[in-house]
C-alpha cells in the first residue's frame, strides 16, 4: 500500500499550504448552509402542533449536541493517532478542538435549558440527555484544564490523548448509567426520546443546520490549527515569509 498520503500529514508546511484552500471552502459552505438553514428554520418551517414556535430551538440544539459528541470522539481518534504514529498534527488537532467542543456542549446545554422552560415548565430538568451533556461538558473542561496545566507541549498533548481515550471508553457507560438512573428515579413524563417521526419540511432544515454546524466546526478548527502550526514552527523560513506576507 502507498503511504505517501499519510506521511504528508507529518509536514506542518504541507498542511499549512493545503489548509488555506480547505479553510476557504469550509468557511463558504458554513456561511451558505447556516444562512439558508437559519432562514428556513426560523421562518419557513411549520410550527410544531404541540410545542408551537419554541420547537424552533431544536434547529440549534440538536446540531450543537451532535457536534459536541462527535467532537469528543474526534479528540480520542486524534489522541490515538498522536500516541501511535507520533503525529504532531494530531496533537495540534486535539488541543485545538477541545475548546470548540466545549463551547458546542455549552450551546447544547443552554438551548436545552431555554427550550425546557416553555416545554417542561422548568429551566433545568434532570433529563438523561441533558445530564449526560453536562457530564460531557465536565469531561471537556478536564481535557482543557490538563492541557493548560502541563507546561511541556508534548507531554501535555500525550496526557490529553490518554485522558480523552479513557473518557471515550467511559462515555457510553456514563450515558447508559445516567439513562438507567433517570428511568428509575423519576416518572418518564419528560421523554423527548420517542419523538413522532418528523415531517419532511421540519426535518430538512435540521439536516442543513447539522451540515452547517459541521462545516463551521471544520472552519474554526482549521483556523486554530493553522495558528498553532505557525506558533510551533515560528523559527523556520517559511513561517517568516508567511508572517511578512500577511497584513
Amino acid at each position, binding site marked *: 500500500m502507498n503511504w505517501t498520503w499519510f506521511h504528508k500529514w507529518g509536514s506542518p508546511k504541507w498542511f499549512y499550504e493545503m489548509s488555506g484552500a480547505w479553510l476557504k471552502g469550509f468557511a463558504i459552505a458554513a456561511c451558505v448552509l447556516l444562512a439558508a438553514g437559519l432562514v428556513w428554520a426560523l421562518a419557513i418551517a411549520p*410550527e410544531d402542533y404541540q410545542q408551537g414556535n*419554541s420547537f424552533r430551538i431544536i434547529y440549534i440544539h440538536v446540531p450543537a449536541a451532535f457536534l459536541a459528541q462527535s467532537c469528543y470522539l474526534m479528540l480520542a481518534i486524534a489522541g490515538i493517532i498522536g500516541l501511535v504514529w507520533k503525529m504532531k498534527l494530531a496533537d495540534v488537532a486535539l488541543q485545538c478542538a477541545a475548546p470548540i467542543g466545549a463551547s458546542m456542549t455549552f450551546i447544547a446545554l443552554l438551548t436545552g435549558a431555554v427550550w425546557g422552560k*416553555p416545554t417542561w415548565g422548568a429551566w433545568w430538568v434532570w433529563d438523561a440527555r441533558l445530564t449526560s451533556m453536562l457530564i460531557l461538558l465536565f469531561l471537556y473542561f478536564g481535557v482543557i484544564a490538563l492541557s493548560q496545566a502541563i507546561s511541556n507541549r508534548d507531554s501535555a498533548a500525550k496526557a490529553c490523548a490518554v485522558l480523552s481515550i479513557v473518557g471515550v471508553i467511559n462515555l457510553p457507560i456514563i450515558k447508559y448509567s445516567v439513562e438507567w438512573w433517570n428511568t428509575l428515579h423519576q416518572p418518564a413524563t419528560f421523554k423527548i426520546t420517542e419523538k413522532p417521526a418528523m415531517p419532511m419540511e421540519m426535518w430538512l432544515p435540521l439536516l442543513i443546520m447539522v451540515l452547517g454546524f459541521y462545516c463551521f466546526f471544520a472552519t474554526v478548527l482549521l483556523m486554530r490549527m493553522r495558528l498553532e502550526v505557525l506558533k510551533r514552527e515560528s523559527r523556520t523560513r517559511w513561517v517568516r515569509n508567511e508572517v511578512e506576507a500577511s497584513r
Partner: protein
Amino acid sequence: MNFATLADFFAMGGHAPYVWSAYGISLLVLLLNVAVPLLARRRYVADERRRIRREEAAQ
C-alpha cells in the same frame, strides 16, 4: 412562509423570549469561536513582525 407578518415572526407565537434568546446566545458563542482565533492570529503576526524587526536591527 410560516408567518403572515413580520410582527408575527418576531413574536414567535408567544415564545419570543425563549426562541430569540436561545438563538442570540448561540450565535454569540459561535461568533466568539470565530473571533478568538482571528484576534490571536493578528496578535501573533504583530508580535512576530516586531521580533523580526528587532533581530534585523540587532544584526
